[in-house]
């Protein structure tokens, strides 16, 4: 690609306990972070429209219960409860457009 002024290697990258002087691309460390899954938070797995909400706040749900219909890619996708619990809060309304990974519902999970 373009040969602008080449960056000088000055960052350190640790591999197996040894630090190597090298160029580390921007955003690299952020990329390497791992975020723990939060099963109580139900996120939209695709951008689309909330066609129907099947549950109310405070309602108890079983694993696999239909929570809402998320229409996307010409398909009425079912959003199911991943685990049994209580619907704590619903963050979206019917007819609302949602982005990917938007918070839809928060469940209250029984304490393990």
């Amino acid at each position, binding site marked *: *690609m373009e040969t602008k002024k080449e960056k000088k290697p000055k960052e350190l990258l640790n*591999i197996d*306990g040894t*630090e*190597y002087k090298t*160029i580390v691309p921007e955003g690299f460390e952020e990329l*390497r972070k791992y975020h723990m899954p939060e099963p109580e938070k139900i996120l939209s797995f695709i951008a689309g429209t909330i066609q129907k909400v099947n549950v109310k706040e405070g309602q108890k749900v079983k694993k696999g219960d239909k929570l809402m219909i998320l229409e*996307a890619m010409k398909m009425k996708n079912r959003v199911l409860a991943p685990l049994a619990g209580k619907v704590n809060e619903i963050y979206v309304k019917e007819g609302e457009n949602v982005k990917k990974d938007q918070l839809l519902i928060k469940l209250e999970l029984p304490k393990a």
Partner: protein
Amino acid sequence: MGLKRKIQELQKRREEVLQGGGEKAVLKQVSMGKLTARERIVALLDKGSFNEYDMFVEHEARDFDMDKKTLYGDGVIVGTGTIHGRPVAVFAQDFTVAGGSLGLMHSRKITKIMDHAMKMRMPLIGINDSGGARIQEGVNSLAGYGEIFYRNTLSSGVIPQISVILGPCAGGAVYSPALTDFVFVVDNISKMFITGPSVIKTVLGEDISMEDLGGARIHSTITGNAHFFAKNEKECFGQIQKLLSFIPWNNEEKSQKIASKPPRRDYKIEDIVPADPKLPYDVRDVIKAVVDDSDFFEIMEGWARNLVIGFGRMGGRTVGFVANQPIYLAGVLDVDSSDKAARFIRYCDAFNIPIVTLVDLPGYLPGVDQEHAGVIRHGAKVLYAYSEATVPKMTVIIRKAYGGGYIAMSSRHLRADFVFAWPSAEIAVMGPEGAANIIFRKEINEAKDPEKMRKQKVKEYKDKFANPYVAAAKGYVDSVIEPAETRKLLLHAIEVSEHKVISVPKKKHGVPPF
């Protein structure tokens, strides 16, 4: 009617076709910094060598008033010519005619020239500049794409296939370039994506420009879909001509041999590499210190920069180089660099190009993102590609060759023909720090001064294992050599492997991890 009149009629018909989409459309094309399709072919091929076929092809669409429209050449120009005096087949989509959209006859022109290229065993160059499928022709345009993809696949590994993206190339159309060997893009002109910005806006509500979604820079630095990036079309054609100077014309030929030239004197091999394995250097300088005339033609310069691939010549013949690049990410193997190396190795193997591998890596990149991105599956591609390759394979271990990285980078065990190591080579299961921490954990933890003990143990390990002689004692390394001897030994290795024969089990094909 006399013959003269008939000739005049032919000339008139030709002139009509040569207007393409008409003056207005041509002006628009030029105003975008683009050449017209015919100008592009002329600029790319040897002067006066182009012969066009299927000039008078017409579409047969009837629906949506298409029967009232004349589309000259049906939006694509096909023909044969020469580059460096050797034959090539070429097609160029003409954006001025119905946006270069692909209908049935358009695709038939392309597949006809593809069939020619295969029959005559010559490279195929496709210049893409098209709005996509011609919607009015419905499923016929889909059939057209499918016929092209099928031929791309059958031709793969038989003739070189080159794609030049000089305009939009969207939707299913992108899969023809993706199936070919080399993709060329030009800044601000090339655009490649499966779904464009407007679809993304409707479906996802996200705003993104064409350039940021699938422009030339994106494909040369982020996606790895493009192999060569140029600032303008002229530079791009120069790159294609240069690439064709290196590669053999088909899978039954070897590269052209030209006069051998020594490397330039300003690349002093011993001054390039620091002895401390933790310090970086640009491995391209090492390549330039061993290839003819220090002329190294890098491929995928902007993507997965922790690994360098490209062509150079040794003794006048083309050699493919694969090298870890310590200047980026310490030269580790990761998902992208594994992918980059593996495909290039398979290209070289398919087209009889010997491979020289320069090794200096601390191993595979550790991290959650890498593991979750499938570094196991992608890393395995390198092992597969090297093991499978039957062309002459020469390996030079410059410094670090640790763990899985050592095995993957064309080791003896994957059937490298010659393995040379510099005296600075460290061939071991892992770096001294990591190894000492594991082997001497107890001693270190129980010592009065653990830090002092750790340092001592690291040094012990380093003295014993961080060298090429342990591997040389087992015959895993053929020679420990002085850096200055590298070119001489590589030249010799290439010479003696000229008639390499290797037998592999009979099979339809393997099942590589891709």
